[in-house]
């Protein structure tokens, strides 16, 4: 800050104090109205512009335009010294990357905006990356694009894909384990004591204990948060999308028909598949149906593959 006028220092301090929002020249003038700044005065727009120019020369201020109004925001000293050490091209690219915020910017867009040759862009990006000023991130939406953002920023949900993605890869293991936990929670609510040791017989759970017990999305989310299964913060919408997946797999059902929005119950056949249940006495199921497939052991004769019949045999004849 050495060599800066007193007034310029004051303006810089004011802008830094207003982190996150930029100020128009009228607002700055209003702020310094009547204040004693020693030799320097900020009484008119001309005075202000003189000091602003001073700050601009040292990269301590950023300009932006909102409508027809010119606005100013402060740059901290560290950042300013960083930028001042950069080459002109690097600084220009850096400013675009900074402007893109948490969304990041694609290399092609940088090239188009800066109008620089690709080699120069790549060289500058490499240099900035080496100095840990910027980092490249993988976008879930556009996995093939190389996107850059400032080193200290956390990518937005649009870029990372939300809680289901780890390192821009869909974390199917995490999703599957959450699906199992949610299913068990709803199953326990729908058919209490289902996984208990006592009285675990098929006929006991014929009836769901009633729709009053059916959990809704908020309850499921509360259970997940309370159990400490994951340290990732899940919203109700995230839990709802997991419940939708379970509905698509026909493991749970929505109870919308009974006027219970967002409430779910497990399907009986998913219970049958998960828990070995006793068959009640006198039960006759003489004809095989596709519903009984999960009960058929050794349906595929591995020793003699010619004995198998495939549904696509007709298509591949």
């Amino acid at each position, binding site marked *: 800050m050495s060599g800066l006028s007193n007034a310029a220092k004051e303006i810089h301090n004011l802008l830094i104090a207003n982190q996150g929002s930029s100020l128009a020249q009228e607002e700055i003038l209003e702020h310094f109205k009547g204040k004693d700044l020693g030799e320097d005065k900020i009484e008119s727009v001309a005075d202000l512009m003189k000091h602003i120019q001073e700050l601009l020369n040292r990269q301590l201020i950023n300009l932006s335009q909102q409508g027809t109004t010119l606005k100013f925001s402060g740059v901290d000293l560290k950042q300013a010294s960083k930028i001042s050490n950069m080459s002109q091209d690097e600084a220009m690219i850096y400013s675009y990357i900074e402007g893109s915020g948490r969304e990041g910017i694609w290399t092609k867009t940088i090239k188009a905006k800066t109008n620089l040759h690709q080699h120069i862009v790549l060289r500058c990006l490499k240099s900035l990356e080496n100095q840990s000023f910027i980092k490249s991130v993988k976008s879930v939406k556009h996995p093939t694009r190389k996107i850059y953002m400032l080193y200290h920023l956390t990518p937005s949900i649009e870029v990372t894909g939300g809680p*289901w993605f780890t390192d821009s890869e*869909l974390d*199917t293991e995490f*999703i599957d384990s959450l699906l199992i936990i949610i299913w068990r929670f709803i199953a326990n609510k729908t*058919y*209490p*004591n289902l996984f*208990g040791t*006592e*009285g675990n*017989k*098929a*006929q*006991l*759970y*014929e*009836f769901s*204990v009633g729709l009053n017990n059916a959990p809704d999305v908020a309850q499921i989310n509360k259970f997940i948060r309370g159990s400490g299964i994951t340290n990732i913060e899940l919203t109700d919408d995230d839990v709802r*999308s*997991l419940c*939708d*997946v379970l*509905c*698509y*797999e*026909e493991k749970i*059902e*929505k*109870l919308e*028909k*009974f006027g219970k929005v967002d409430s779910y119950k497990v*399907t*009986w*056949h998913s219970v*049958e598949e998960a828990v070995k249940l006793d*068959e*009640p*006495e*006198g*039960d*006759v*199921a*003489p*004809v*095989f*149906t*596709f*519903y*009984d*497939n999960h009960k058929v052991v050794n349906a595929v*004769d591995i020793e003699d593959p010619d*004995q198998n*019949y*495939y*549904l*696509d*045999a*007709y*298509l591949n*004849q």
Partner: protein
Amino acid sequence: MHKDYYRTQSPESYLYTTLIRQVVGPVASDVLGLLMAKGRLTVGRLGTILGIPHRKVHAALVTLIQLGCVVYYTEKKPITHWNTNDVDNSKKKSTGQTWYYFHETGLLLLLYGGEMIAVVRREHGPDAATLLQAVITSGHVRLRDLERDDNGLEIHNAARHLIEDDWLIPTGSEGFQGVQDQWDDLYKITQASYHKEHLGQTISDVKRTAQVREETCIAFIKRITESLDHLKMGLVSSDVTSELLPSISKVKRNVALSANFDRFLKHKRTLQLTNMARHRLGAVAGQVYQAALSIVERHTRSPLNTHVTVLLRLVAGSGQSTTTGLSPATIRETLERQRDSDCSPVVTFRPSDVLSRLSHECRRALDSTIWSESFSAVKRPIDSSEPTTRSVHKKIKLEDNCSGSNLLSLVNAARYAEEDSDRMPKLQALLELLAKDSSVPFLAHGDHGTFFVPFTDLAPVIKLQTYKSCIRTVLGAPCLRILNCIIDHKLIDEKMLANKVLMKASEIRTKLAKLIEFQIIEIQEVPKTQDRNALRSVFAFRHRFDLGTNLMLKSLAFNAAQVLESLTALKIDNKILLDKVSRDDVQGKELEFLQPSELKQMELVYQHELRSYGQLSRILASLDALKFCN
């Protein structure tokens, strides 16, 4: 003709020709395959195309007609419409040729015959099963042909039971003739008489056709009903007495009886619905639902609804050069009529009717169906007495002639009656559960506390559930997840799909390719630019139930044919051994007459056969659910 011709023609052709090859022989199989390909042919044309002597073709046709696999139509002199004096002209046109058509019902009877016999054996006993077997293998029989001195009473009893339960129906000459031809003949006669009546009157062509069509329709229904009534009249009567059967009702000996496939389909529908209830609500709910269905099974309409469907199609196609098919309004009206018939008083039931049909085991299971907090702590009161009851039951069974058993059964009956009154609210609750299911309307409420089964609304659900189960089993749960998401969103692109089903893009693409291969889903291009540039277009997916079901039916039929073919091949490969085993001197003394290697081979043959029949029954289980639920 080479058998691969029928294999490539269509899966149905492959299945039915393989079946007929196994049951009747290769000539009949060729004749049937050709009739399926060409629609209708005369004996001359059949013989010429196949290169077989006419005598052999005739013999094959006789067998096929008898089995109900082929129907015929003998051309009559055309009716002179306008000018009755133009006799010479009509004589020229008269050829009197007999045409033969493919008829599916007979083949279905052969395909499902084993299962039908098993059902009848379970419900009506071995005599009835033997009779039905004789009817299916011969196509149709008269009782006098089966009667011997020693079995008259059993046969008549079995026939009476089967007729009363609609498993056997009388058949006349109309049963061997094509319905389309009968309709066409009647249409021509009605048209001629209509023109004669309204000669000189100014009536528009459209009105004329509509009126002729309506009159034909009435006459056609009348003819069918009259012929059936005529055949049924006095079929089973109690006033006929004979030396052989002095005191029981008897069946006319000279009426030809044939198996009723519609009745079997009703039974299959009951099983499918029961299994669906078991699948969705549990085993006890399934048993209760089965009891409810068994009350109404016989009186309900056929799943195929053949008469109505055929008639509507005939009406829609007659009197015009092109067939337009059924209009959506007609289909809606028919469905409404069917819905009305679903709740007619004959097919409604009360909870007490269901309870009376439940087995004692099921009634006991009913006690523990409703979950209660206190269950795990407190034992059910019935549990304490259950072991003694069971042991008593066993004793009674063993000692049938014991005088004390009657007393015990009376005591038991009184105890069961008391318990039944306690069970009624639970049964009522279970029936309510079936009626209020979130996605399948198993039951519906009728008047005065009765219930009925909405078959019309259930038919598409059975089809869809079987279809989805098939996809899940064959293509895997991820495919079902994707399919359900597509059905839910109607039209969805790949990116959106990936967001919704939370699966990796590469996996989704693989599964989508599989679903597209089976025509379960189809791709729709959504252009993003004005020039409809394919590179910039988005491709969305939609579900096509009809296409998917059709291909699945074809695939299943093909698989069934493959199983049958492998059975035929097995028999041909082991012909010498099988002939040896079936010799009279070898039967019963296999260990003496057969080499150890031959015994081992026989075991392999039987295992293969058993496994193949198991596979066939599994394939047919989903085939009939997809094919006959309308």
